[in-house]
């Protein structure tokens, strides 16, 4: 104990060196834990994002891409699926339920998902949890449902109005302000991308994009639309437009019909659809069947296995980050070693004094080990503090930018393990100056070689 006190006092006397060394350790510890923390949260966030959906079907594209845009609202659909194709599969005898989604619009950077009200019934996340409403209910015509985070950030309640913007950027030059949406419901927080999304009816999306004429304004004519990227836009495919006026007339006449009315498509094309099967083991056959559909090139994925695939892709990245942070730690420890070794030279007098009052070489050894360990432990403590500070300040940003919820939870086992590694590495590093001082004190004895 008294040795630890002496070590601390000695360190304090070399405050600036000690603080710099400590900060190097702290930053490397923070990085080491931060990488672990973020990948842990990402992993569980990913795994919890969707469950209970057997297949996700989109236009022909990579499976990870389909998963990313349909579930995480990251990236854009490569192409749309026609409503007829959707109907074909929705009516398949194996299909228990299906929910179409159409993407491409946003509200202040938050993605708008056009879907059917049955979405709220069938969508499951985490352990088969369904979506619940914090207030209000599912949308009807002209209404929207917002995720918890959207409601909080944009300060929306049931009854507020919402103007949807064309495109997915956070700054939009084209707002569908002629067609403001009424908020019908606010969802309970889920910790998934659902929190970040706005849900509207397919029909409303189509109307916003001039699918019918009932609210058409000048700024919605086809010229202004050509200026936008149509390819990424679900509700407003070129083909649909070029089908001619009579189809639009049909839309018009049915604009107030219920969604269940299969005969009339609420929207010409959708981005993807979620499928629940009668029998889950059939998923792989169904997937094959959809992938080989001749009428339209489609891709069907099983969300679980694609999540896995996605995670495998990311885990290489995660490992690389871990290796880099490991090297940062090594650099921090070597910095500490260099500082302490350098200090030994000017502290030979101090060692001689300690020996003169009865400290053995063993005591000198312990003193040096304690000094290094005091630095290491303090560095670890500060590092953990920095980590929590960063999580606390950056968590909202991480959530809104990446949809990853980083919680202010305690230190996990994996993190304890990493801390233990730092501790052990610090201990081994400490043996080097301790051994050097031990040897010096043996040979110097009481003489003060400076």
């Amino acid at each position, binding site marked *: 104990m008294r040795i630890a006190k002496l070590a601390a006092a*000695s360190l304090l*006397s070399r405050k600036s060196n000690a603080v710099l060394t400590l900060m190097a350790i702290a930053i490397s510890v923070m990085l080491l834990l931060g990488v672990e923390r973020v990948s842990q949260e990402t992993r569980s966030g990913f795994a919890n994002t969707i469950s209970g959906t057997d297949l996700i079907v989109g236009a022909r594209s990579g499976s990870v891409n389909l998963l990313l845009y349909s579930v995480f609202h990251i990236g854009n659909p490569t192409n749309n699926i026609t409503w007829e194709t959707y109907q074909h599969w929705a009516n398949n005898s194996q299909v228990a339920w299906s929910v179409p989604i159409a993407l491409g619009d946003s509200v202040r950077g938050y993605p708008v998902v056009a879907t059917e009200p049955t979405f709220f019934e069938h969508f499951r996340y985490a352990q088969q949890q369904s979506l619940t409403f914090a207030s209000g209910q599912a949308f009807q015509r002209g209404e929207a449902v917002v995720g918890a985070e959207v409601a909080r950030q944009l300060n929306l309640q049931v009854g507020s109005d919402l103007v949807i913007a064309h495109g997915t950027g956070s700054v939009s030059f084209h707002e569908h302000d002629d067609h403001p949406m009424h908020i019908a419901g606010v969802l309970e927080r889920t910790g998934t991308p659902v929190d970040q999304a706005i849900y509207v009816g397919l029909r409303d999306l189509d109307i916003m994009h001039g699918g019918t004429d009932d609210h058409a304004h000048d700024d919605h004519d086809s010229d202004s639309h050509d200026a936008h990227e149509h390819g990424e836009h679900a509700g407003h495919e070129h083909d649909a437009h070029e089908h001619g006026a009579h189809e639009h007339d049909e839309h018009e006449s049915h604009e107030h019909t219920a969604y269940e009315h299969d005969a009339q498509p609420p929207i010409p094309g959708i981005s993807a659809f979620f499928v629940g099967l009668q029998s889950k083991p059939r998923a792989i056959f169904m997937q094959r069947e959809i992938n080989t559909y001749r009428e339209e090139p489609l891709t069907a994925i099983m969300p679980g296995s694609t999540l896995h695939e996605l995670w495998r892709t990311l885990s290489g990245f995660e490992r690389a980050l871990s290796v880099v942070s490991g090297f940062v730690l090594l650099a921090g420890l070597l910095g500490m070693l260099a500082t302490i070794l350098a200090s030994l030279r000017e502290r030979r007098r101090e060692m001689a004094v300690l*020996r003169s009052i009865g400290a053995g070489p063993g005591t000198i050894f312990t003193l040096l080990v304690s000094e290094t360990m005091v630095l290491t432990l303090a560095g670890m403590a500060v590092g953990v503090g920095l980590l929590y500070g960063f999580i606390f300040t950056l968590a909202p940003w991480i959530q809104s930018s990446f949809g990853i919820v980083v919680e202010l939870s305690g230190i996990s086992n994996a993190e304890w393990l990493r801390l233990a590694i730092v501790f052990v590495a610090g201990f081994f590093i400490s043996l080097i100056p301790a051994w050097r001082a031990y040897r010096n004190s043996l040979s110097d*004895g*009481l*003489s003060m070689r400076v």
Partner: protein
Amino acid sequence: MATLCIRGQQIKFCWPRQSQPTIDIAELAIKSGERILLRGPSGSGKSTLLSLLAGVHAVQSGTLTVLDKDLSQLSQRKRDKFRADHIGYIFQQFNLLPYLSVIQNVLLAIDFSKSRGQRLNERNTSARAESERLLTRLGIASELWEKPAGNLSVGQQQRVAAARALIGAPELIIADEPTSALDTDARDTFLNLLNEECEQQNITLVFVTHDTTLSHHFDRIVELAQINQGTSIEGGEA
């Protein structure tokens, strides 16, 4: 025998990588309570002899008995403990840990030795009280006690070092030219105070110097050159 504090017979010590022993003393006897001036020119093996007496190094042949303990029979660890308990050591300079306060520097000697603390207990005094007494006695004003030792002048530092050597009444004090950095006045004051304390507590004092003008402070002068047959090629006095 009991009255002998230090007794050396045929002691030899040779530094590694040197062919000739630095210390080769046939007979060395210092009585308990005696105050000895050990004199020798630079490079006469003074520092080596002191580190043998203090038990930092062990003689390679012969016997060196300090306070009835044959140091060569003790392990390194036991010699370190022996030094902590029974020997006070004062260097020429830089005796103090500059980052500790004056009083902490004095108390450090108690931290390293239980028996010094016990001796104070037997005298019904605490370590703190005794260090304050010694510091006052040696002329260190109380407002300096909590100051970092590095802030003191060299003369003051040497007196604090004396207080640390004296605390808990060790039987032997070894002083390695503690006054060489002091001016004549400070030197005499320092020596008088050290002598008085040693006398009061019946402490044996081995005082090393090459300054002949200090002889009158001591009971006896030992000329190292006369007793040491070793060839001394120590790199100067540190």
